[in-house]
């Protein structure tokens, strides 16, 4: 059959989670999250059984009809069988169609439930769980992995259930005619439906585990050759690299070959089992007919029925592969869900009348205070320590330092999206972790570098920050960040649809759109991450200076790596070597801190050169 090939096809090496690492009970947990009802699964299996059962019944009744007809009975005695044969001929196709629709509907419902559950738990759980996952990975978990778990129903559960029901039914039916034939059929079905899938499963596992490393290296080598084609050619290394590619390919081939042995044996066993079932029925049946234990007509039935009885088991090797794949996908999804720290309560049911979370109002003024704050990711070291700062309404702060010193991490911690490693963040005197999240967000809003632009209109994208933004307010905010001309030349203005994740806008436009969104939020305190990124230095500096100077009665904290616009800030925090190395106004720092002055000088010279 086709097991190995489909698993090998299109599978990315990094997704090759070793089956051995998947914890027990993974599938059961994942199935529970799909929320598929037993009744619906049973319905699909029943219809599927009737469909394939029609094919077996067609074979059995045809055999009976022909054997009986050869005894030249009155035609009337055959009419019921003749009608039955035609009926089975039609019902097989129709019922199979119905079964496919039922099982696919079931699987799609399960996928929706699982996706909703994943979303709900990511939304409720620890913010870090979402921030940690790379965007591509998140989409893979929610996209392809959820599909793979859903496929378990269509390609794993239902075929297995149908094969089991039919196997038992056919074996019993044949056993009623002639017990040895029924027994032989049952044993052969076990070989085709249990042993063969197990072998296939082993083959696929072997191939996967041996090939995954070679596949990753092959991909890296091929990418390297194509990315660096020029340098490799000039350095005379192209042939050596191509030979390296061929070596990795040979390793993949060896791994697939190793897995092909059990898989091929499994395919052969399927054919062998069918042949043996027919042979046993024939060899035991002929003497039984002679001794009168079996009617001659029945001999034709018990010998010919097995020819049709193996259709259900023939798809089981593929089903075994699907189960493995679904398990690996389920393990990845469950790991993501577990990282949110939310309780595993099974499938989430969306409450139609979900009350909005109660909002208590934190009184004004609401200073955001960091005390001896250390910040970093939970499983990493603290990247910044001993940070003290106070952001109040009407003040502007700038956090500045070379890239990679942890400025963004600080911003996420101040926004309450990462827990502090040490020290605390207080909002209106209360530790942020003790406040309900809605209260925090009503006071402090952070915009991050990688914030998402939704695949909807410009206006709706701005309304993500606040649901009641009017077109006028939207225009004002866009003009403030220098996007006035941009929105004016869009075909539908504010109602222009943006592509998913804003692939249709440039980096600078995207950045400023996100900034406009943050400015429209209700919150009195704004934390802005590199608002001038992707802009040319002059425009970036103008924008940052404007944000720091004119903040409309709000408190603004800007994280940036450029120093030029910081004269507009009330206070500048200069980050160096994992701590706040100096603080004060721009002019004070220029006079007092040699490192700061040097950086400012370097920035100026580079700027002149760039012009």
């Amino acid at each position, binding site marked *: 059959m086709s097991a190995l090939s489909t698993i090998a096809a299109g599978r990315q090496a990094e997704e090759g989670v070793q089956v051995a690492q998947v914890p027990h009970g993974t599938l059961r947990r994942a199935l529970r999250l799909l929320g598929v009802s037993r009744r619906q699964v049973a319905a699909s299996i029943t219809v599927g059984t009737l469909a394939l059962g029609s094919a077996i019944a067609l074979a059995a009744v045809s055999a009976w009809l022909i*054997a009986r007809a050869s005894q030249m009975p009155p035609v009337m005695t055959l009419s019921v069988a003749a009608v039955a044969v035609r009926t089975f001929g039609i019902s097989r196709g129709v019922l199979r169609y119905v079964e496919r629709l039922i099982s696919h509907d079931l699987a799609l419902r399960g996928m929706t439930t699982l996706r909703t559950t994943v979303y709900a738990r990511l939304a409720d759980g620890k913010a870090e769980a979402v921030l940690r996952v790379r965007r591509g990975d998140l989409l893979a978990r929610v996209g392809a992995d959820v599909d793979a778990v859903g496929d378990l129903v269509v390609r794993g559960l239902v075929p297995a259930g149908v094969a089991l029901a039919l196997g038992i039914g056919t074996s019993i039916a044949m056993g009623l005619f002639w017990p040895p034939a029924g027994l032989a059929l049952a044993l052969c079905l076990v070989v085709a439906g249990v042993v063969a899938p197990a072998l296939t499963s082993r083959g696929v596992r072997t191939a996967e585990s041996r090939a995954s490393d070679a596949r990753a290296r092959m991909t890296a080598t091929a990418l390297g050759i194509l990315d660096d084609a020029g340098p490799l050619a000039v350095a005379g290394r192209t042939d050596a690299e191509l030979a390296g590619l061929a070596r990795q390919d040979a390793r993949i081939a060896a791994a697939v070959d190793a897995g092909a042995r059990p898989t091929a044996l499994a395919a052969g066993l*399927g054919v062998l089992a069918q042949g043996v079932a027919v042979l046993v029925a024939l060899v035991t049946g002929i003497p039984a007919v002679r001794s009168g234990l079996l009617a001659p007509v029945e001999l034709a039935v018990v010998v010919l029925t097995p020819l049709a009885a193996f259709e259900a088991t023939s798809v089981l090797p593929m089903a075994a592969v699907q189960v493995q794949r679904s398990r690996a996908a389920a393990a990845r999804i469950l790991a993501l869900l577990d990282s949110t720290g939310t309780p595993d309560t099974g499938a989430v049911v969306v409450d139609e009348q979900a009350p909005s979370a109660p909002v208590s109002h934190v009184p004004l003024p609401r200073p955001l205070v960091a005390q001896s704050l250390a910040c970093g990711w939970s499983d990493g070291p603290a990247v910044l320590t001993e940070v003290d700062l106070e952001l109040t309404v009407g003040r502007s702060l700038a956090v500045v330092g070379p890239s990679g010193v942890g400025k963004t991490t600080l911003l996420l911690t101040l926004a309450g999206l990462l827990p502090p490693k040490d020290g605390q963040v207080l909002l209106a005197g209360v530790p942020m972790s003790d406040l309900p999240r809605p209260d925090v967000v009503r006071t402090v809003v952070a915009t991050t570098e990688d914030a998402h632009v939704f695949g909807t209109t410009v206006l709706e994208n701005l309304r993500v920050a606040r649901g009641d933004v009017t077109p006028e307010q939207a225009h004002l905010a866009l003009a403030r960040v220098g996007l006035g001309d941009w929105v004016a030349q869009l075909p539908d203005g504010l109602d222009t649809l943006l592509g998913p994740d804003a692939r249709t806008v440039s980096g600078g436009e995207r950045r400023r759109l996100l900034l406009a969104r943050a400015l429209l939020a209700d919150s009195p305190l704004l934390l802005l991450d590199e608002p001038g990124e992707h802009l040319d230095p002059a425009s970036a500096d103008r924008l940052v200076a404007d944000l720091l100077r004119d903040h409309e009665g709000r408190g603004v904290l800007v994280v940036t790596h450029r120093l030029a616009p910081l004269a507009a800030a009330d206070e500048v925090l200069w980050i160096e070597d994992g701590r706040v190395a100096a603080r004060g106004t721009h002019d004070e720092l220029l006079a007092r801190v040699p490192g700061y002055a040097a950086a400012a000088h370097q920035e100026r010279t580079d700027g002149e050169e760039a012009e």
Partner: protein
Amino acid sequence: MKPLDPKLLTYARAARGYLVLTVTTGLVTAGLVVTQALLLGRTLGGAVHDGLDLNGAATAITWLVVVVAARFLVTTVQERFAHRAATAAVNELREQVVEHGTRLGPRWLAGGEGPALVTLATRGLDALQPYFVNYLPQLVLAATLTPATLLVVLSFDWLSAVIITVTIPLVPIFMILVGKLTQGRSEKGLAAMERLGSQVLDLIAGLPTLRALGRQAGPVRRVQELGDAHRRATMGTLRIAFLSGMVLELLTTISVALVAVTIGFRLVYGDVDLVTALTVLVLAPEVFNPLRAVGTQYHASTDGVAAAEAAFTILETPVPPRGQTPCPDLRRARVRLDGVGVRSSGGWTPQGLDLELAPGTVTALVGRSGIGKSTAVDVVLGLLGPDAGAVTVVPEHGTPVDLREIDPRSYWDQVSWLPQRPFLEPGTVHELVGDVDPVARDRAAALTGLDQVVAGLPDGWQTALGTGGTGLSVGQRQRVALTRALLTPAPLVVLDEPTAHLDASGEQVVLDTVGALREAGSAVLLVAHRASLVRTADVVVQVRAGADDEAPADSPDVVARASTDDDAARLV
């Protein structure tokens, strides 16, 4: 789209042997299936009708055992080699596509079809696996088993053969009809499906943003609604898509049922005998089985066929011919560009570029980004042929040779190139810088600042680095590459923005290296942004772009020898 493209056999040699094997097993399978039906029909007919006993049936049963064993063997062998051949064929195509890609050159790879080639080589071609393993054998069986069984049926009972023969063409006709009738609807359905699917993913991708703004709770219901809408759209499409499968199954099963009923009634009247009837009954489904399998595997195969066609398109893209003339010794020859222009989407970048690279001279290319400096470097290196003008190598004594006629290997052997993102082959740091005397090595490393990098590595000079210099930052890799350039001075050294990833101290390293290379008599070509670099150059060349129809400007490219800081700053 052809079900079996002959080109596949041309490009993938593994596919040839495999096709022979598959046709052989197909023919053998056809023979075995027919033999099994004949033996079963005879034995069973005898036992049911004529009271045949086990002794009388012994020969036939023995042969049946042989047939069953042989079918087991044939199936196992076919499957065993299908995977091997498929992997070999995919690998062959991959290696050819990648090799052809390198011969088409970096510019082609960076262009429109380049990224598609990467996807094809790393993942796309794997779709051929199911094509080879599942689809091709069934296709071959449809061409062997189906006609063979039909002929046997015909030889036994012409009426059954007629029923089957009438059905066979109905299968494709009905499937095409269903396909045509439903095409528009299912395309619309597919589009709706994709849109809804991407909307759900969009919401989930935006979850961190929604959280940061405190608006994550609302969309839970939206995710579910979109999921439900997606399900309805999908089911609408599937209802139609599964129709063709139903037609296929209906036609084939009804045909078998009709054969059984017709032959049954004729038995009653004694028109046919039982052996014939049983043989035909066993054979009738076998006629259709390969057709049904081809139908169900069809979709799996289309991706593979598409991938193969994409590969053929790439492999048939013509490669510029390689020169044969050995390159003159660059230690005593100059590389000259006369009026070089390269056509790009926006016009000419660069346009009308004249420059001369002479031993012991440092030449700097300047100009704003996107004007074609790196393109000019590709032209100098012979990786890209100019669309206008010429590149020649001018020996001290003798006639100039066009770079196109020069064997690239003999040219590149004399060139050392430091691209913006230096590539390092696997090896220890010591090997990477040229495996030279440690004293010279340490002196060079002190100059380039590599000594500090090495001091931070776990095994010092013996630290093994992976492909691409994994574990080193771009700046560190640049120092390795600079040290190598210094230790094994090539007659022509090309440095593309060597200070891009370096701070002030790193920049000094580059300046010192360039000075040392000039001392050693190399011709150095710099692509420069920073004034400090431009200052070190003996000759500064301004790169210019031009509109499509613009005549080449005739003002000199070689602007000046930048002697003062002001000049340098003005030029950049």
